[in-house]
């Protein structure tokens, strides 16, 4: 406009105020739009024009529509969104496990109690078939509970995998959208002459926030207005207008748990980034899997192994109603020979070879000592000279001691595991040992016939009351070696007097035909028969794998018999011993009973859930604060907009009045010079 042009000044005012009003209208319309930053038109006075006596203003112009936004608070919101989401997902999933483990109908504790209660009923009346049937029923319930919990947790595993797939897909979509917006923003900036396309920026910020709900990200602003997004340890997700993809891949070394893969755009190398991703739903679900789900599955598995192994070991030392030695009570596991000679067979545990191994070496792992088994998973590797076992939960590495240099290579029992490799592995080969992952789904009851419950003990000791005149007595037999071939042979201990007197001072160990038992079967006392005996010292006798104690004064001719407990249907000694298992320290280094081991799981899950809930509440509060801080600057306040509306309406009216006055002045001038 030309100098001092009132019309022009008025019109500039109109335009500027109209612009402001539009922007106010924009703010009001978007009061409920998520992520919207309020805009403000920045007005500045036009460059004045010089005149003879000073500068004359030229009105106002709008320089920019400013987006009121703070980088810092947006960042805060983004970070806290990621953290809060992560804890939210963690607490949501963890509380599912939490409710399961302590549920009186689905939890394990009541089933264990009922099982042992019914075992006591069998102790009370071992010959009763109904009591035995109740025990079998409760045993079935117990393994059912294990199976139910295992299948429930497996479903959770699948749900986790599904969520990973979904989240990865969402992340990729949002990343694409961000890259698309990046492009749009670059173009818009170009078109707008370097001005920021505010609404697009808001939109992009919102998308980045959405991305943060899925995963923690770091953003770096580029000069051309685009944003670069990095995840994990610096893997780039969005670079300008290009996106890199995360992929949900199967882990061939652990097929039950999905991994997250990433292809490095520069080197082209594909790798797993699972351990590097944190925050957001994805981080939360990964934490859940690592710290709650997998330990729960393994803890249950350890308990299943514990109950099965310790119960079976005692059960096999008993005698059932058919007069046979007890079989396995719990089953469902494969058994392999133990690495320690003389030990009975052991349960085979889950171990795999790495898919990328170059040698054909195969790994076999057996359960050497259930007391010392942990809930962790391991990785075995070698550097050619030594073998190392890495605990995948704590990352501790132990060097294994070779007990038999192979092939096959056998190692000393470590953490309750007996490990062997059938041939020499190559350097770089890895083997995965997951001992407690599967048992809770495998355990079953191996007995269906109540007669097969071994409540009795196979050996009984009797004095020959018809003959005996002395006051000597024999203890109950303790079984030292259940596998001794002559365990159930009848053995007599016959007293005699070397001087022909009445009181006996020696004894012989013979069979039922009075033929001396071979010395090879007699572990104690040592030496040749007859053995000296004094009533003050008594005698400890170990023969054929059992042991008895004799004491008291025996007379010449007194006899004691150790024989198979035939027809011993009312004998409850083994049932009593089995019942004592409920309180015995059978697990976790011998310090915990079954109930204690289960309580450990309950406390673990309970604590994690509680922590997650508390953290979520805290993070949520922080997030609310951050949002509030952001809104402080960027949020639309309707009252403020209403006030501004009034202000600019008035200003507009005033500017319009200026135009009207300018027109009147012009009219006056025209009228003045008209002829």
């Amino acid at each position, binding site marked *: 406009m030309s100098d001092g042009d009132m019309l022009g000044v008025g019109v500039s005012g109109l335009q500027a105020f109209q612009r402001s009003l539009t922007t106010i209208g924009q703010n009001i319309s978007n009061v409920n739009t998520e992520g919207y930053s309020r805009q403000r038109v920045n007005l500045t006075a036009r460059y004045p024009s010089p005149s003879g006596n000073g500068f004359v203003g030229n009105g106002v112009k709008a320089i920019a529509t400013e987006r009121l936004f703070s980088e810092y608070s947006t960042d805060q919101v983004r970070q806290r969104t990621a953290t809060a989401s992560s804890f939210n997902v963690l607490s949501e999933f963890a509380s599912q496990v939490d409710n399961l483990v302590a549920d009186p109908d689905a939890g394990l504790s009541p089933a264990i109690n009922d099982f042992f209660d019914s075992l006591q009923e069998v102790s009370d009346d071992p010959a009763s078939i109904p009591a035995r049937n109740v025990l079998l029923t409760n045993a079935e319930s117990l393994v059912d509970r294990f199976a139910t919990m295992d299948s429930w947790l497996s479903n959770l595993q699948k749900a986790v995998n599904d969520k990973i797939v979904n989240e990865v897909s969402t992340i990729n979509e949002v990343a694409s959208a961000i890259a698309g917006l990046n492009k749009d923003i670059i173009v818009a900036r170009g078109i707008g002459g370097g001005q920021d396309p505010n609404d697009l920026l808001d939109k992009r910020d919102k998308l980045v926030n959405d991305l943060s709900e899925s995963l923690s990200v770091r953003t770096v602003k580029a000069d051309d207005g685009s944003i670069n997004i990095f995840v994990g340890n610096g893997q780039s997700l969005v670079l300008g207008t290009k996106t890199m993809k995360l992929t949900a891949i199967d882990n061939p070394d652990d097929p039950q748990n999905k991994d997250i893969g990433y292809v490095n755009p520069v080197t082209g190398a594909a790798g797993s980034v699972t351990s590097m991703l944190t925050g957001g739903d994805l981080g939360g679900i990964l934490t859940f899997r690592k710290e709650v789900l997998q330990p729960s599955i393994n803890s249950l598995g350890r308990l299943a192994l514990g109950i099965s192994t310790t119960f079976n070991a005692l059960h096999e030392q008993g005698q059932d109603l058919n007069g046979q030695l007890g079989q396995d009570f719990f089953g469902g596991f494969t058994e392999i020979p133990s690495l320690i000679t003389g030990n009975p067979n052991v349960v085979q545990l889950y171990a795999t070879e790495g898919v990328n191994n170059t040698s054909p070496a195969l790994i076999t792992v057996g359960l050497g000592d259930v007391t010392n088994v942990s809930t962790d998973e391991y990785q075995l590797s070698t550097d050619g000279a030594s073998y190392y076992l890495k605990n995948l939960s704590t990352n501790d590495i132990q060097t294994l001691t070779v007990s038999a240099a192979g092939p096959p290579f056998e190692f000393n029992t470590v953490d309750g595991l007996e490990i062997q490799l059938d041939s020499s592995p190559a350097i770089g080969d890895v083997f995965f040992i997951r001992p407690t992952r599967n048992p809770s789904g495998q355990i079953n009851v191996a007995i269906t016939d109540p007669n097969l419950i071994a409540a009795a003990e196979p050996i009984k000791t009797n004095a020959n009351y018809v003959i005996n005149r002395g006051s000597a007595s024999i203890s109950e037999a303790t079984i030292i070696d259940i596998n001794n071939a002559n365990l159930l042979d009848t053995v007599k201990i016959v007293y005699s007097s070397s001087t022909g007197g009445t009181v006996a001072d020696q004894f012989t160990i013979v069979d039922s035909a009075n033929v001396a038992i071979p010395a090879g079967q007699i572990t104690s006392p040592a030496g040749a028969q007859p053995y000296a005996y004094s009533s003050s010292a008594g005698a400890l006798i170990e023969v054929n794998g059992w042991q008895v104690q004799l004491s008291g004064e025996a007379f010449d001719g007194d006899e004691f018999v150790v024989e198979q407990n035939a*027809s011993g*249907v009312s004998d*409850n000694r083994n049932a009593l011993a089995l019942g004592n298992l409920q309180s015995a320290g059978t697990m976790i280094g011998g310090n915990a009973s079954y109930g204690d081991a289960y309580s450990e799981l309950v406390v673990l899950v309970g604590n994690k*859930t509680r922590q997650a809930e508390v953290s979520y509440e805290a993070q949520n509060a922080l997030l609310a604060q951050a949002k509030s801080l952001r809104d402080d600057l960027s949020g639309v306040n309707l009252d403020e907009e*209403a006030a501004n509306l009034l202000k600019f309406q008035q200003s507009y009216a005033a500017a319009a009045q200026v135009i009207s006055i300018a027109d009147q002045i012009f009219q006056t001038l025209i009228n003045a010079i008209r002829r």
Partner: protein
Amino acid sequence: MRVSTSALTQISLDAMLKQQTDLSKTQLQVTNGQRLTAPSDDPYGSARSLNLIETVSQNDQYQVNSSYAKNRLSLEEGTLEGVGNAAQRVRELMVMANNDAQNIETRRYIKEEVDQLLEQVLALANSVDSTGEYIFSGYQGKTTPFGSDGLGGFTYAGDDGQRLIKMSESTSVAMGDSGVDTFLNIKNGNGTFQTREDVANTGTGIIDPGSEIGLYVPDDYSVKFLPPSSGNYYDGLEYYVLDSAGDIIVPASDAGNPEATFIANYNAGTSAGVPYEEGAEIQGLNNNGMKLSISGRPNVTSVPPLTESTPLGTTFTVTAAGSDVFAIQPSNNQSLFQTIKNFSNTLVSPQNSPEDLAKFHNAMNRVMVDIDESVGRVLEIRSRIGARLNTVDKQLNINEAFSLQMNMTLSSIQDLDYSEAITRLNLQLVGLQAAQSAYTKIQGLSLFNYL
């Protein structure tokens, strides 16, 4: 400080939602009556309550076990009361039968009652409990324990197992006694040693069961007789005592000598036995822990045989084999049934001649002392059962108190304090109402209302 409109709404909304969440949690607690709605509410409390539930459950089972034991023991007690009564009756009959006012006819009637009592005792010994198991069979509960062997003896098909029942973590009690302990493992004689006449005896000597005095030295002793070394055969007898090796114990002067040497000395007149007095204590046995006496007149043979008319001063010799023998041996085990059977058989043994009567009374002495042992054993077992029942009762009470204590602790962890919860519920209701009311009021305020 600015507050944006949406922030304003959000703050009010968040407050209401929080109130609602808290309220619903309180409602859940009140509905369930439990303070803990999930383990995460109190992880250690949850684990502790699982432990307590396990303990309470075990304790309840112990109560069941205890009443089972109580029933079984009461049954055994009752059965043994019957056995004891029968045995007492047998004893009474023994005393009656031993009286010489009875004769073989009357004793036959007594035998009938005795045989019935034996049947009764056998039946009681083969008692079964409510589940059909024999209570005196040891571990072989489905095997009938006692039977006759067809030859007048008795068989036992059970064993000496004793079943324990668990009444608490640390206490067990035996649920019964085996047939061996109750009926079979009973020492005959006076419990330490038994006395009997030799079956080949021809005299009328009667030996009493004797008693233990001091420390009994276990051995097989024999008391034998000799004619008096001086004077007339009918003036008296002498006796000597041997041990199982055949060496002399009494008289002390010849102690240690083999019997043959002593007899030779006696025949030569250089040794003599101890003068025999009817019914007086046999001398020299106290050191070996025995005190007994013999009455009646044992027979002794000599060469030449001595009769009433043998003149004084006739020389004679005796041999080791020529005398009535009385044996004193350590007690054997003899069952109650065998004792009663022995009595029954004795009642119809020959009772005509004085010698027969002597044998009869010797046998009666034995069965009378044997039945005392049996009765004593039954009483002992009954008192054992009594003690066990006492223990069971005490344990039932202890378990009861323990259960109460555990349940109280459990309740304090798990259960809801209703008054606190309801108060909280009311507070939260008020809070929610206030938040809702505030929200409505604040939302109504806008400058646009005034434009």
